[in-house]
């Protein structure tokens, strides 16, 4: 059981009508690993994520989590979409608590975790605010906090920083790394930003344009915390960028 992958995609194929989006995609992700999936815009990264969280069904193939078919209700997993998916009728605090209450956790533990997460995402003072009062990037911080609040075994993030300014993005990239280390989650992070992928991940899966396959799996041995101006960092970033430029 020790060597069983956390996530195993096996011959995943997805067609929308005649359009082949994913073409026989297979790979494994180890428990506790931080993997970035990179590829050109529109290559099917989001489709792949939707298959992982069972929002859509594959045409063929399957996704296993801990050796059994993926199911958000059975696995302790969470997801951050591109668009902030905060619930507008709940305060910041209640948004963070949402899935903890769904899982019927102990009230004291819910409060403890919520306080901790609010502090980590820097929103303690806005805990009673509603998402409609906040900026889009603040909403996305709530969603990230909500996802980590349940200490998920598996966290899927789909270009979560797309709508944020660069300073906040750097801050939240570090926050996600801190939360990942603290919760020991397995993280699958989808992005088209190569620098972000190299900064965050232990491994990058490079996708081809449609029909999408996995072009390469590139290990990232650089130690944390990473420096974007480190020559090794730049070399790895250029290596991945060149692979994408090839197409």
């Amino acid at each position, binding site marked *: 059981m020790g060597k069983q992958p956390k996530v195993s995609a096996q011959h995943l194929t997805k067609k929308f009508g005649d359009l082949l989006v994913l073409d026989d995609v297979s790979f494994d992700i180890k428990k506790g690993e931080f993997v970035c999936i990179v590829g050109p815009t529109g290559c099917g990264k989001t489709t792949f994520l939707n298959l992982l969280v069972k929002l859509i069904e594959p045409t063929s193939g399957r996704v296993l989590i801990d050796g059994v078919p993926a199911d958000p209700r059975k696995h302790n997993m969470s997801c951050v*979409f591109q*668009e902030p998916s905060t619930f507008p009728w709940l305060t910041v605090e209640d948004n963070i608590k*949402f899935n903890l209450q769904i899982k019927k956790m102990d009230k004291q533990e819910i409060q403890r975790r919520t306080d901790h997460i609010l502090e980590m995402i820097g929103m303690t003072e806005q805990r009673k605010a*509603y998402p409609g009062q906040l900026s889009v990037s603040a909403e996305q911080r709530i969603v990230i906090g909500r996802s980590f609040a349940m200490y998920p075994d598996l966290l899927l993030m789909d270009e979560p920083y797309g709508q944020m300014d660069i300073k906040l993005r750097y801050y939240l990239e570090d926050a996600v790394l801190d939360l990942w280390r603290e919760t020991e989650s397995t993280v699958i992070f989808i992005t088209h930003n190569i620098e972000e992928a190299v900064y965050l991940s232990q491994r990058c899966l490079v996708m081809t344009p449609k029909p999408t396959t996995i072009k390469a799996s590139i290990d990232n041995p650089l130690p944390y915390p990473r420096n974007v101006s480190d020559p090794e960092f730049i070399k790895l970033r250029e290596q991945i960028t060149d692979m994408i430029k090839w197409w």
Partner: protein
Amino acid sequence: MSKIKKEVLYYGLSVLAVILVLAGWWAAAAANENLASPADTVERFFRLVENPIMGKPIYVHVLASVRRILVAFVAASIVGVGLGVCFGIFPTFRRMFWPVFAILRPVPPLAWIPIVILWFGVVEDTSKYIIIFIGIVMAIVINTYAGISETDPLYLNAGKVLGANKWQTLLHITLPNSIPAIFAGMKTGLSTGWMSVVAAEMIAAKEGIGFLINMSMKTTPDTALDFVGIVLVALCSSVVSLILTVIERKLCPWLRLDVK
């Protein structure tokens, strides 16, 4: 322009609109001797207080109408929200019963009056409750169904990946998201409800505002009494709508404009 100045301006415009309506009413009454003026209406109101119709003080008539509409409204809200939710979340239920609902929906509630009176009698309040209920329930069903079925897929997907089951999704996502639509249905339903209560009381009642309006047509036309009835309906419906708005604001604080 500052926010306070804007508020003052808007209130001023509202007062001006009321004055214009009253002036128009006065002018129309001056041109037609059979039409009661606002002053005649106020005078008739006080005469009504001193000389009750059918031996019942005016508040008894008002309370009778308010009671009827509130009882029917509560029943219609429970049934309407229930049916709207069922239409929204059970596809089989919707496919089975929506055609029946769609056929009955355009039928005016007043068209049911003869059948309901025949069935439940003239004197019994049950017939009035049923007519008012029919008037209110349709709008609540439609709006609840719209609120449920138009829930943003982003919220539903978020709930799904966070592990919410079908009932948790309904209770914690779909229903809270639909509250504004449900209240819109309740407000629309109340308007139809007041129309139904007046009509039902005009046809078969011994008390109520509709009964007062009906009395204005007996023997010699008493348009002042008619206007008293109209003003009472307007005031009562405004108060009930205001209470509903206060409840909505309490339940939906995120919708308040001053939140931002």
